Structure formats: structure tokens, C-alpha cells
């Protein structure tokens, strides 16, 4: 390992690999550091990878990459005690060009990192970056736990994931608050291809994603999911750390309760647990975005809180931010000026683009739900009750049923209170 590079990227996840790939493609001398034995060995996500923007970096990547199933149908379920209220959207046009795939990250990240290496990036595994080296107010390299000790570069891209320890060291953000992160736990359950396709009503190789709310999280602010892989299912649940702590629940108990819910239990029946995983999801949103650029340094991906929790988007933002970081770093290197004055363009591109726009749009959603647990705890069973009222045929005229539905939905909150709740949620989402 030489000791000087044009750029060092810390962390081989979607953001870091993309940044390394794009810099290497431009002929830049780039070092990609990964603390695990291989890229993906520390990385976790629910499992949906949107093809945009990766398809602009590696056109048609799905023909080569180790992916699971193209997602042709998205289902949403509001779980009640033992039933559910569901919505599904299927569109065969999502097959070509594909919109999203389920993926298993340990496989996918290794493949993606290998593409960066093929472009000329140097990947060094089993190396933890313990500290950013700052000299005269500018970042000049990182300290690593290897005999070489220190590596230097014109620019360091921090893509070190949800904990974002290095950006914190630089003072780019304070320690995350428990409200700003969701603790997600997940299991991969092996199940035969035939069973998956019959059970989820899909054709050969096709996939479904299911997001679950309500009883799925015991009404805690968060979401649960069930995704189809080739010959396995990924099932998990994530809730804000603050609410989990307050509820004095063990996260794996939430997962077990989810797995035993009648609706879910039938879908996963016979699935053999293969791996248990846990990870933080940065869900602080717009207001939690840290300082993104400094002298000789940029922050990308989860480390920068680039997650849209409402739409389960994260890896796509990671890839996009890694791509933008590489573009700006390349420009700065051309100019021979990697100071904050030039690198700050990265922040502009992020904020003016889809990441900034979407995070700003949902800036109030998570805080509102976090501060008002009634949205999930109170309204979820109420909504279930109202729909049951509507669909149960028992001689009660529909006019009366509508009245009862309103009563269900406004119970304990009053009509005005309920109207206010809906208005506030609508404003935070729409």
C-alpha cells in the first residue's frame, strides 16, 4: 500500500464504491478502505435496490450483477391484531427496464466493489479508518489500524455508514439523537423458489416487496418489511431507537411477534432462518444532514443521513451522492484546489437535486410521527375497524355504516381533533 493517493474513500458500501468507481474511471488514483473481510460483510439493508441511478453508471448492470428478483409488485399492509388492510400495485412494465431488485448485500457489494477495482481503484479490506488526519484546518488523510499507520490524499470521501464516526470527529455533526436513527433487525429465511412464486403469486424469477405498518411495529414509529429473494425471504422491522427504548422492547422480540402474526406466518411458513442481522438506519432526514464538505473532505451516503424513510430509499441516494462526490472531487483535482470553496459545490448539487428535494419534502414527516405515536397506535386499529364496518354485510344501511365509520375514525379524538390530525399528516407528507 503506497502512502499517498489523489483520493481516499472510507467505506465500501454503495456510496463509497460508487465514488471510487467514478474516480478510477476518470483515471484518478483512488484508495477504497473497507474494515470488513470483504465489502458487504458489515453492510445491511432491507433489500430493495432501485436501478436508478446505478443504471446510469453501469448500463444494464442487472445482466451481470448478483441480484435476487426484479420487484414487479409493491404491497403495503396495515396489520391489525390478527388481520390486515392491504394495498398492492403491480405493473409488468417494471420488468423492462427494471425499476428495482431485491438484493442480498454481502453478494452485491462484493460484485460492485470488484467493478470499481476493474476501473483501477485499489480496494484494501480488513482496514479500519480510526481517525481523520487534520493538518492546518484541512483533511489530509486517515489513520488506519495497519502497520503503515497513516495514508494521505488530496481529498478524503467519508462514506463510513450510519454511525458516521469520522464526520463526527470533524465536528460536521454531533452524536445522532435516538430519534434520528431507526434500529432495524432482520432475518434471511431460506425457502424454495416454487413455494415463493406460488405463495406470492409471481411468475418465474419475479419478486414482490411488502411494507407493513400498524401492529407490525406494535404501533411504534417505524416499518416492517418482507421481500422475496431468489430462494429466500428477507423479513425485518425497524423502529426509532428512542421509541424502542421507551417501549423497553427487545428488537428481536418485535421481529418474532411480526413473524408470528397470522398474515405473515403463512407467507414465511417453512422458511429456515439463515442469518440474523441488525443495523441502524439514519432517519433524521433533512434537519439531520451534517456539514457535507470541508477542506479536503466530503461526506456521502448514510454517513450524511441521505435516507428517505417514507419511501424506503437509501442505497439509491448513497449511489447518487457517491457519484456527485466523485464528479466534484475530479473537478477540484483538475483545478488543483481541493479546499472547501470548491468542494462546497457538492453540497449545492445534493441540495438542488433529488436528495435535497425529497429530504426537504419529508422533513416534518418522521418528527411528526415520532412526536405523535397516535398516528400509528391509535388510527391503525381505527382504520381497520372502519373498513370492517364498511365491508361487513349485516342489514345495516350504508348511510348508517358511513356514520359508524366516521365514529370509528374520530373516536376519542373528536371530529375536529381527527380533522386536525389528518391535516397535519397530510401537510407533512404531501
Amino acid at each position, binding site marked *: 500500500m503506497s502512502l499517498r493517493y489523489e483520493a481516499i474513500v472510507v467505506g465500501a458500501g454503495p456510496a463509497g464504491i460508487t465514488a471510487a468507481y467514478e474516480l478510477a474511471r476518470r483515471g484518478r488514483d483512488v484508495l477504497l478502505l473497507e*474494515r*470488513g*473481510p470483504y465489502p*458487504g*460483510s*458489515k*453492510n*445491511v*439493508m432491507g*433489500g430493495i435496490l432501485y436501478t436508478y441511478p446505478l443504471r446510469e453508471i453501469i448500463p444494464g448492470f442487472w445482466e451481470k450483477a448478483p441480484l435476487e428478483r426484479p420487484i414487479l409488485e409493491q404491497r403495503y399492509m396495515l396489520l391489525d391484531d390478527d388481520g390486515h388492510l392491504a394495498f398492492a400495485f403491480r405493473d409488468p412494465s417494471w420488468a423492462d427496464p427494471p425499476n428495482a431488485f431485491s438484493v*442480498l*448485500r*454481502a*453478494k452485491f457489494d462484493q460484485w460492485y466493489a470488484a467493478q470499481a477495482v476493474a476501473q483501477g481503484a485499489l480496494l484494501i*479490506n*480488513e*482496514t*479500519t479508518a*480510526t481517525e481523520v488526519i487534520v493538518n492546518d484546518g484541512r483533511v489530509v488523510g486517515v489513520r*488506519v*489500524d*495497519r502497520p503503515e499507520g497513516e495514508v494521505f490524499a488530496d481529498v478524503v470521501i467519508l462514506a463510513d455508514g*450510519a*454511525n458516521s*464516526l469520522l464526520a463526527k470527529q470533524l465536528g460536521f455533526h454531533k*452524536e*445522532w*439523537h*435516538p430519534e434520528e*436513527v431507526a*434500529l432495524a*433487525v*432482520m*432475518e*434471511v429465511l431460506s425457502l424454495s423458489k416454487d413455494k415463493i412464486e406460488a405463495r406470492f403469486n409471481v411468475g418465474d424469477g419475479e419478486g414482490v416487496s411488502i411494507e407493513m405498518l400498524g401492529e407490525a411495529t406494535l404501533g411504534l414509529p417505524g416499518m416492517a418489511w418482507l421481500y422475496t429473494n431468489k430462494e*429466500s425471504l*428477507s423479513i425485518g422491522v425497524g423502529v426509532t*431507537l428512542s421509541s*424502542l*427504548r421507551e417501549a*423497553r*422492547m*427487545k*428488537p*428481536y422480540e418485535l421481529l*418474532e411477534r411480526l*413473524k408470528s402474526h397470522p398474515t405473515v406466518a403463512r407467507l414465511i411458513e417453512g422458511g429456515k*432462518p*439463515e*442469518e*440474523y*442481522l*441488525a*443495523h*441502524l438506519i439514519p432517519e433524521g432526514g433533512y434537519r439531520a444532514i451534517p456539514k457535507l464538505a470541508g477542506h479536503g473532505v466530503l461526506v456521502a451516503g448514510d454517513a450524511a443521513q441521505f435516507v428517505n424513510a417514507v419511501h424506503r430509499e437509501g442505497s439509491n441516494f448513497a449511489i447518487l451522492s457517491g457519484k456527485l462526490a466523485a464528479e466534484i472531487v475530479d473537478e477540484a483535482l483538475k483545478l488543483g484546489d481541493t479546499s472547501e470553496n470548491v468542494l462546497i459545490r457538492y453540497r449545492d448539487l445534493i441540495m438542488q437535486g433529488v436528495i435535497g428535494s425529497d429530504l426537504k419534502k419529508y422533513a416534518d414527516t418522521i418528527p411528526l410521527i415520532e412526536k405523535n405515536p397516535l398516528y400509528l397506535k391509535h388510527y391503525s386499529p381505527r382504520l381497520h375497524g372502519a373498513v370492517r364496518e364498511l365491508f361487513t354485510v349485516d342489514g345495516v344501511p350504508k348511510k348508517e355504516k358511513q356514520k359508524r365509520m366516521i365514529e370509528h375514525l374520530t373516536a376519542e379524538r373528536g371530529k375536529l381533533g381527527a380533522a386536525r390530525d389528518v391535516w397535519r399528516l397530510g401537510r407533512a407528507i404531501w
Partner: protein
Amino acid sequence: MASKIEEKLYLTRFQAAEQSHLTVIDHDICLTKCEEKWCTHFCPTDVYRWEGTRMHVGYEGCVECGSCRIGCPYGNIHWVYPEGGKGVVYRLA
């Protein structure tokens, strides 16, 4: 079904380091200030176990999520990544 945490952890691969990457900064805080022993509730792999007078830290089963560092109301957990190559090694997702 792997419903107990021991069964779950059996599924996950670890490459244990010789030294703990997790340190309780002041054991007195756990003993005298933290009645709830919060970390013993929310840690996804039950790394923390209260042993009457002292917090036992089973760092070998840590999946490095970071929840304890952020979730300890007293900021009493010093948390760094394990040395390169050590710690949890996910094989699948």
C-alpha cells in the same frame, strides 16, 4: 424457528477480536444512576448483561450497529469499530 437470541446469533458469523471495542466508561453510573439498564433492553444481540453490581459486556456477539452508544442516556459507552477484519461477518443480506 430461531426464536431465541442465542439461536439467532448461532446463525451469524463472528470473527472475535482479542480486545473489546466497547467500553463502559464509568461503571458507577450503571450502578447508581441508571435504574433501567437501558442498553440491556434494546441491544439487538444482548451484548449487555447486568450482573447485580456491574455491567457485563459480551462484545464478541456485537453486530456493531451503534445503538448502545446513541441510546445510552448517560453517554456512558465508549464505542469504536473492532480492528479491521474482526467482528461480525455477514454472509447474506
